[in-house]
């Protein structure tokens, strides 16, 4: 009965509000009864309650109703915050998330809310204000409310209010709110909306009208009541009381933009002077809070527009084409200049360079538009850290820096899992139990710092802890025990190489396997996921003092720098992030080890792969005495040399997929369009390194 768009709006809002609740619960847990946090949660719960009821999710609505109740009482100082209450609220939040997941998956709510509802009530009972501690908290709360009241009181009272138009009947409460809104610079409108009588989805239309109006203001009241509208129980239309800063015409246009709205009548509502003397003291908090909210909302509305990701992708695609054409133009300019030496050539040079600049800027701006603050990933971490620390009996002081750092949304989607994994490892293996830390002379609570920053056109995320660190000797021992390599081979590795072993599949440093981490599938997957998006992960560790992981990520996945090479009559691109260096070798420098070719680069033996052989293609290089060009590719700590015909140079390329029809082609990761309009294939450098550097070859380096 709801359109996909309506449903997606609902889920977006739901996720946003659940995050608000989660964040503020964490604040409450640290800072006791922060009035702002309580207010925020109250509002978020209230919103979820309303919208989930509209969508027909009764359990979610019922549970948020309980939460809202508790926060209403907290607001009023009738309850005090206790650890138990916060824990129970976290539990309730988890239940809400579970409900959400179920709705997303199957549109059904099966999770049980009876237990948690009962516990919430029980908790609320035991937290009633009255005890000594309760009194103090209540006093603090009251003080906070007083601030809000004063804030409201300092505003001059609107004097010249006219009586409300006859046909609009407002209760005292509503009048007080209207007056309050006027004082804050908002207009109150009585909006009569007529819906096409033949409308099939009356409930959905009403929902859309509400949703639209809430973008520009606040709906205070509706006739018939919202509950009836939600069920589509209205005749030819309905009325709402709206507070907004927009003018009547704009509101009208907005509503008319909704399908099947056939008429809109708007009338401004003014509070009567008599009501001003009425019971406004009691509404002061709500009123002030409300107008604050409207202000926040309208500020957001001016600043942002929601755009479908596909539109941005399409835009990016077009810019990609522009980049290609600019490259073509550059070539043309070169030809032009060599043939004609006059003003014409100069002008075209000018045009070309200006076009180049504009294209660059455009590319940058669109790339920025696709970016999201890394907070999207980071925000869900504090809660996870808290829960894990509880479970493991550790104390953790988790600090996040650089939340506002922006990343391409594709990158953001990928880094979540690796980060969670690294954090788990940190808490599970890194941070010592509190007693042990005290014994070692460290603070009881371990410190974990997660930081994101721009460094040289890359995003660098560091995750450091002050735990026990990773001991090379332990790693060496474990690796041998797990049969990853022989004791002799292990002894030959440098400490750095040993530390790299934790990225080997099947390795886990944990002494006992827990359900938190240490299933031995971790670090290799972390590295894999990060390298898939052309990123890298490294770490340094000081035994006893902690470990720092450094993840470097590209700003975007759509455009990369690449080394262009030629093989036969085809051009191939190697992602520059995987190119270590290029060499020109005499054929004599290529050696044979058993049946494979190797080269020696500064004392290291690297396996050698001939691209022509790999791709089963004719090489133009037939003279056995000529120098051969070798591209050294690296992924992680492994390297291989790849023989190509000719090196063409570096270039920025736009990555295109080979399409669903061809799917995954071994050895290739995509294609790109060159300046001359032909297609060049992008070599899957990581895949080649993995294939090429057998374990044997790798450990022969020593």
């Amino acid at each position, binding site marked *: 009965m709801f359109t996909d768009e309506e449903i997606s709006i609902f889920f977006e809002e739901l996720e946003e509000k659940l995050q608000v609740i989660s964040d503020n619960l964490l604040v409450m847990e640290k800072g006791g009864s922060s009035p702002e946090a309580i207010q925020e949660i109250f509002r978020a719960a209230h919103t979820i309650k309303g919208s989930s009821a509209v969508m027909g999710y009764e359990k979610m609505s019922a549970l948020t109703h309980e939460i809202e109740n508790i926060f209403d009482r907290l607001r009023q100082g009738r309850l005090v915050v206790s650890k138990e209450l916060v824990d129970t609220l976290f539990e309730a939040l988890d239940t809400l998330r579970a409900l959400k997941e179920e709705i997303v998956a199957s549109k059904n709510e099966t999770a049980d809310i009876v237990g948690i509802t009962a516990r919430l009530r029980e908790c609320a009972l035991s937290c009633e204000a009255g005890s000594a501690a309760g009194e103090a908290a209540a006093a603090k709360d009251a003080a906070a409310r007083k601030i809000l009241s004063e804030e409201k009181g300092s505003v001059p009272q609107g004097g010249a209010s006219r009586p409300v138009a006859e046909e609009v009947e407002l209760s005292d409460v509503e009048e007080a709110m209207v007056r309050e809104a006027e004082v804050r610079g908002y207009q109150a409108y009585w909006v009569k909306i007529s819906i096409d009588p033949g409308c099939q989805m009356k409930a959905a239309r009403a929902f859309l009208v509400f949703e639209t109006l809430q973008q520009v203001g606040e709906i205070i009241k509706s006739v018939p009541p919202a509950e009836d509208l939600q069920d589509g129980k209205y005749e030819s239309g309905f009325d709402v009381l709206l507070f907004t800063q927009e003018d009547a015409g704009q509101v009208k246009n907005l509503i008319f933009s909704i399908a099947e709205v056939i008429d809109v009548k708007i009338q401004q509502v003014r509070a009567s002077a008599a009501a001003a003397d009425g019971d406004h003291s009691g509404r002061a908090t709500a009123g002030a809070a409300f107008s604050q909210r409207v202000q926040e909302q309208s500020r957001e509305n001016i600043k942002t527009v929601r755009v479908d990701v596909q539109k941005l992708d399409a835009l990016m695609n077009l810019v990609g084409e522009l980049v290609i054409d600019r490259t073509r133009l550059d070539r043309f300019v070169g030809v032009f200049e060599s043939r004609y030496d006059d003003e014409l050539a100069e002008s075209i040079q000018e045009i070309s360079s200006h076009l180049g600049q504009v294209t660059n800027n455009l590319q940058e701006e669109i790339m920025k538009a696709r970016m999201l603050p890394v907070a999207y990933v980071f925000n869900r971490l504090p809660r996870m850290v808290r829960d894990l620390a509880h479970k493991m009996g550790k104390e953790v002081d988790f600090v996040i820096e650089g939340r506002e750092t922006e990343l391409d949304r594709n990158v953001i989607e990928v880094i979540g899992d690796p980060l969670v994994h690294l954090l788990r490892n940190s808490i599970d293996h890194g941070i010592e139990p509190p007693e042990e830390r005290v014994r070692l002379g460290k603070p009881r609570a371990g410190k974990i710092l997660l930081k994101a920053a721009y460094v040289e056109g890359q995003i660098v995320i560091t995750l450091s802890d002050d735990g026990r660190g990773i001991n090379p000797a332990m790693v060496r021992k474990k690796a041998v025990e797990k049969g990853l390599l022989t004791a002799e081979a292990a002894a030959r590795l440098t400490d750095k190489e040993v530390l790299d072993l934790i990225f080997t599949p099947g390795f886990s440093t944990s002494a006992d396997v827990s359900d938190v981490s240490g299933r031995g599938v971790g670090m290799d997957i972390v590295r894999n996921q990060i390298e898939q998006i052309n990123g890298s992960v490294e770490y340094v560790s000081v035994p006893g003092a902690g470990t720092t992981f450094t993840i470097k990520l590209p700003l975007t996945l759509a455009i990369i720098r690449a080394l262009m090479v030629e093989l036969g009559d085809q051009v191939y691109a190697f992602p520059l992030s995987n190119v270590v260096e290029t060499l020109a070798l005499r054929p004599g420098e290529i050696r044979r080890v058993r049946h494979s070719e190797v080269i020696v680069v500064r004392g290291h033996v690297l396996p050698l792969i001939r691209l022509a052989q790999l791709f089963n293609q004719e090489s133009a290089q037939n003279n056995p005495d000529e120098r051969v060009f070798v591209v050294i590719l690296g992924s992680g700590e492994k390297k291989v040399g790849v023989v190509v015909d000719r090196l063409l140079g570096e270039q920025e390329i736009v990555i*295109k997929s*080979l*399409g669903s*029809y061809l799917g995954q*082609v071994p*050895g*290739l990761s995509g294609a790109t*369009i060159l300046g001359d*309009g032909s*297609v060049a294939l992008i070599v899957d450098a990581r895949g080649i390194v993995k294939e090429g550097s057998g374990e044997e070859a790798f450990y022969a380096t020593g």
Partner: protein
Amino acid sequence: MGVGSNADRMMQAVVFNLADQVYAVDINDVLEIIRPETITRVPGSPDFVEGVIKLRGRVIPVIDLAGRFGLARTAPAAENSKIMIVEAGGATVGMVVDNVAEVLQFSREQIKPPPQIVTGRETAYLKGIVLAGERLIILLDVDRILHEKEKEALEEAAADA
């Protein structure tokens, strides 16, 4: 309403030549027809994939229809040869054809089922045979041409393993 049912009965198809045969595909499956351009060979792809070309900012695969049917191509690049861009089931693919002849309109009643006795790989891709006057035109099922491939590729992979 009368117009609708008439349109339902009629269909248009793009008629082309390939290896001395006359074929046609439903015009709704054809996105456009372009002059041949440099095809970049893709190593490691199935034999009937000639390579990839760029098409308005996208990279799309080009298949050798004759090879797909197990027919020998007459001349590797005939003077009139074209690349016909077709789309079905979300995949956009180019097909090299020797010559694009015409757009033919005919009624659906003119489509006859392929004779039972005709076998061979191409029958799997047939929608039917169109009787247009004296001519017999083989109407291809683009959807199958594009998607049977996955099945085969899977079978091949299974056989290799």
